[in-house]
Structure formats: C-alpha cells, structure tokens
C-alpha cells in the first residue's frame, strides 16, 4: 500500500511517502532546504507559509520516494513541474493520510484542505490521523529496507513530550490508547523554552539549555518538583517556571551569566526529574511490557539517558524513535498511523466534510 502523508500541525510543513510501514521519503520543510526556485523557507507559525510550500513539499517527498518515473521531456515552469510531479505520484499512491489534530487551527487547515483536495481530485482513500498517535507510533517506523524490525510487546506506556504536549499514554495495542496523565498547564518543552527566554537565551530554548547544562552543576539551585505528592500522573510546570523566574529575577545579568550553565543544569534537572517521577509511578501502576518515549524533547540526550536508566531499573525495554527526524513533527509518523488505520478500514466517509480538530484528544 503506497501512502502519502501530510502534517501541518504547527511550524513545520511536512509530507512523506510510505510503502506500508516503510518510510520511503519524509520531508520536513524547516529542516530541508528545498530547491531555491521553489522558495526557500524559514520556520514560521504562519498559515500562509504552509500554503506557499505545501505543494512543493509534497512534490519533494514524491520525488525522493522514487515511486514514479519523473523524467520530463521538456523544460517547464516550476509551478507546473510541481503539479506534474504530484499528478505522477498520484498514479501510484493509494491512500492519503493527514493530521486532523491536535495543533494550531489555521495551520492544520492547510494540510487538511490539501489532503481533501487531492483525495477528491484523484479519487483516493483518505485517513484522518491524530498527531499524538503519530508520535507514539513513530517508534515503529521502518526505513526503505524494512529496518529496524521491532517487536514491541503490548501493553506499553508512552511518554510523549514536546513544546505542545506532555502526556503519559497507556497503549493496549495499536489504535488502543488511554491517557493516564498529562500536563495541567504548560508542556515540558514550553517550560524549557520559557526558562531560556528568562535567562536571555534564544528560542527554541530546549536545545540551548541542553548544551549549557552539560557543563553545569545541576545541584546549584533549589527548585520544586510540582505535584510530587499527588497520587495521579498529571504534570504541572507552571509553578516550576514561576519559582525559577523569581529566583532569576533577583539576580543581575552578570550574576546570571556567571552561573548560566549551573542555572540551566538545575532547571533542566528539575523538569526531567518531574517527568520521570510521574512516569516511574505510572509504570509501577500499570505493569506494562514496553516503554515508549517520543516527542521533540526526546532529542535531548540527557533525558534519553535518564529514561534509559529508569527502564533498566524497572527491567522493561524502552523504545525511542530511531531517527532524529522522527522525534520532532514529521509526516512519516502520520503515514504510519494512516497505514494501520487503512488496514482496519478506517477511512474518512465524506471526504469533503473532513474538518480539523485543534484540540483532538487521543483514546478514551
């Protein structure tokens, strides 16, 4: 089954082509320098930016997937060329999968509208995918050669962390989810971004903090571990952010800069320990066979190490996405969910009426 997948849930415009669960091409616009003629792009939350590049990104994915013979006889204009590549690709593509939610409403509409348009024009089956499910199943992604061959045993417990979400999800099988914990206010990635901004560092703050934290003393500053004593598995990062802010606020710029690495390390530790504490409790509660850790913040090596240790202590295997591109938002993971949904026959019945769902929930 050849699948075209589209994700425009936030900043990144992404398209992928899959053959069953094998990702043949996975193009993310803000990470890939599209051909200059097609309009080089910068990360942007803008809907217009998605609109401008969506077709070029789809065409690029089709090109890289090598599903079609794309030799053109004569030189044609770039707009026409993009259209022609898509049309050629559509001869092979059987299913279109698109992120329906959660995400930024206007951004989501761009992907949803494009998917509808293509599905109707070329008479393809359409699958509406949950973005968070995409992240969770990203650990099952295979390359063109069908590797890695992971046999993940269910039930599993997933920790999904990014700038937009922080959830603990129980998975009893593919397509069967239950959220057992989530943030009540800020996402973990957002908590890192905001702290970075308070220290006068750039956006996104997560990677900057990670780099600084490497050489810092993570015991330098005392910070709370929010909701530590609550029995549920919910998170709250707003109080931690506030506590950090008011400690930093008392200091001069010189004082902050002198111990920048220490503040970064202490804060990062507080965020990660909070994440692990609840996750660890949930693991004990639900007695699962596998652990899954996904989302943009999983690009952080320190967090991966901490989670790796937690998994070893609990004697349960843990799975991370195999490639860097699979941590952050990408259409490859959406295509994978689309594949499983298509196997179950879960297609959109009325294509013209498919609508985005910015606050789409998973499971339950």
């Amino acid at each position, binding site marked *: 089954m050849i699948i075209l997948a589209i994700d425009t849930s936030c900043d990144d415009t992404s398209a992928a082509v899959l053959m069953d669960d094998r990702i043949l091409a996975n193009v993310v616009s803000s990470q890939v320098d599209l051909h200059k003629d097609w309009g080089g792009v910068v990360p942007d939350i803008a*809907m217009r930016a998605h609109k401008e590049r969506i077709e070029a990104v789809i065409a690029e994915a089709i090109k890289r997937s090598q599903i079609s013979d794309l030799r053109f006889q004569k030189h044609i204009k770039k707009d026409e060329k993009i259209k022609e590549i898509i049309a050629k690709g559509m001869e092979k593509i059987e299913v279109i999968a698109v992120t329906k939610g959660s995400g930024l409403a206007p*951004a989501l509409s761009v992907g949803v509208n494009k998917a509808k348009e293509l599905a109707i024009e070329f008479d393809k089956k359409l699958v509406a995918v949950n973005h968070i499910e995409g992240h969770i199943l990203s650990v099952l992604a295979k390359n063109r050669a069908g590797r890695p061959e992971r046999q993940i045993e269910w039930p599993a417990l997933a920790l999904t962390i990014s700038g937009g979400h922080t959830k603990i999800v129980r998975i009893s099988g593919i397509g069967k989810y239950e959220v057992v914990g989530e943030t009540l206010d800020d*996402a973990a990635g957002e908590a890192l971004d905001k702290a970075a901004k*308070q220290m006068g560092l750039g956006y996104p703050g997560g990677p900057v903090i990670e780099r600084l934290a490497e050489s810092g003393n993570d015991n330098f500053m005392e910070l709370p571990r929010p909701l530590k004593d609550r029995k549920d598995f919910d998170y709250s990062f*707003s109080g931690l952010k506030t*506590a950090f*802010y*008011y400690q930093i606020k008392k200091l001069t710029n010189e004082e902050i800069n002198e111990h920048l690495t220490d503040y970064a390390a202490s804060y990062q530790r507080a965020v990660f320990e909070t994440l692990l504490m609840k996750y660890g409790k949930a693991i004990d509660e639900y007695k699962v066979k596998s652990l899954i850790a996904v989302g943009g913040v999983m690009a952080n090596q320190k967090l991966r190490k901490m989670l790796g240790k937690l998994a070893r202590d609990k004697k349960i295997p843990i799975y991370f996405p195999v490639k860097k591109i699979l941590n952050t938002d990408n259409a490859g993971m959406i295509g994978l969910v689309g594949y499983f949904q298509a196997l179950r026959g879960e297609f959109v019945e009325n294509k013209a009426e498919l609508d985005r769902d*910015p606050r789409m929930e998973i499971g339950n």
Partner: protein
Amino acid sequence: MIRIGTKDKKAVEMAADVIKKGGLVLYPSDTVYILAVDATNKSAVEKLIGFKDRWAGKAISVAVLDEVMASEYVELDDNAKRLYSRLLPGPFTIISKGKHKTAKGIEAENGTLGIRIPDSKLIADLVRMVGKPISATSANLSGRSPHYSVESLLGTLSKKKMEMLDLIVDGGRLPNNKPSTVIDISESEIKVLRRGDVVTGKSGQTVISKSEKETGKVAEFIVKKIIEKSKDDKAIVLALTGDLGCGKTVFSRSVARMFGVEGKITSPTFFIFNEYEITKSKTTLITKFLHFDLYRIRDKHELDEINFFDLFEKGSVACVEWPENMGEEALEELKKKVNWVPIKFEYIEENTREIQY
C-alpha cells in the same frame, strides 16, 4: 415559622411582606445566608439583635439596591462613588459615615454604616419590593461561623430562637463563597477589616490575590462586572499583562470555567490560541471562549496569518496573554473592533499578586 423555597415564585413577595410588617427572615445571599429585617424599623432591628445575642454597639451592614439608594443612608463623596462603581454589586461591605436614617443598632456607635449591594437578583428584588434597606448580617449567632444551608443554621438554634424566625426562604446549599470583604472608607485611609474572597489593595482601585484560588475568585468578580457593563455585542477581550508566573493563565482558566468550559484547559503558548465552544452557557450570550498566549509572537504579520483579527466574533470572550507582543499597530486595530479591557498583574511577594483592572 413558615418555610418556602426560592424556586417558588411567591418567595420574594412573601419575604417582602413579612419584612414590611417588621418580621425577621432567613434569606440566601451571594455569599452566606443572611438575617433580613427592615433596617429602618426599630422593633424589627431589636428583634434581630436579640436573635443574634449581639451587643447593640456593633454595626449591622445593610443591603441596598444601588448607589443612589445608598446615598440616602451614608455620605458618599466622589472617591466613594468611584469605589462603588468599581466594586459593587459584589462581595463587599463598604463602611462610610452614616446619615442616621436607620433604626438604632444598625449604625455603629461611631455613626458609621456598612453598605452591601450583593450580586444577587434575589436580594435586589427583595430590596426593591421592601423599598427600604434590609439588614444583611450573616445568619449565625455572634461569634459562630456563617451558614451555607438552612439545615446547618437550624441545627444550632434553640426552640426559642427558631420561633423568632418569621420566615425561612430556602435557597438550598449555597456555593462556598466567603462572607464579604469589609472595607472601611469612613476615614481618609482605606482599611480592609475582613478578608472575603476578593480583597482590595490599598487604594481600593486594585485587588489582591494571595493564592491561585483567590485569583480565580477575582477573575469571576471582574468578568461579571465587565459583562454587566458591556453595552454592545462586540467581543470582550481581556488583555492580561504582567510578568511570567503572575497568574495570567490561572485567571484565564477561571474565566473559561465561568462560562462552563469543561475538561482540561492547558496553556496555549505553543499553539498560540485555543478555542472553546460554549454549549452550556451560563450567560446565554457568550458562545465562544478564546484563550491566546502571544508569548511566541514576534511580528504582526504572524497574527495576520492565523487570521487573528477575524477570530473575535460577536458573542466571544477572549483572554489574551502577552498582548503587548502584537505591537502598537495591531493593538490599535484590535481595540477598535472589540471591547478592550486591560488587566494588569503585579508581583508583590511570593504568593501575593496585585491585579488592576
């Protein structure tokens, strides 16, 4: 003793009749159950004081309809009027110099009188029908805590006391709102004598929150006022400014709850805004709640591209965090389109915030 439920259409009328005849009525308010008598009727007031076992020198606050009615009974200068329009109706008792037009025992020994204009249609209707100020003292014996249900009070009364009640208007179990905040403005310096759910700052022009819970109460209070005052159906935009961690998100969440938004309400920093349809609206006119966090916005064109200006439809209420990030030009454009309500949060100390609106 007669007992009638507030659902009975005759309840208010009956209570007004009893009060006009000098009777003592147990009545639900926006905070706790109160003991209502005609505050200008000498024997009724004596009965009330007898009921409460209370020494006569301590003042009994009264409920009136509005500022005009209040000015018949207390001295109100311009400052006081400003304070009234800011805080009332609401969970406040404002003490001013009395005009000695109530029965003995209502004003304090020093001639001051506490005025309440409760945010309660039941009370307003009652006062309107009686045509006089009514006592609004909490229904408890002196030194005991106030009551939120009729049963709870009756359980503490002797048979004799029970017989003193001429009518009970039963409003069921009241929400757990604290008794009103008491503010004394009879001297040049404003003093807070008792802390209720919403507490004013030193000038009386701001409110102080000492916890997330209080910030929630403040949100409810402020938003009610704003909705009462809005004259057209333009979107209402609460522009929340203040440092990180000052309670802007807590405030927004409380506003959402007020309008009946259920489920989790998380910070929209990442997605810029969250939209909630209001199906079970408590105030029928509001159909949509928008929660913006413009923390990540650096440029006006980013707003244009999320169709920012089209989001503020009629009948919507929006909380906008970091409105300053949209820039002057966008700010001016939006202000023309909507009812713009600036609300400022200031950090005082670790758990204390001052909120200006």
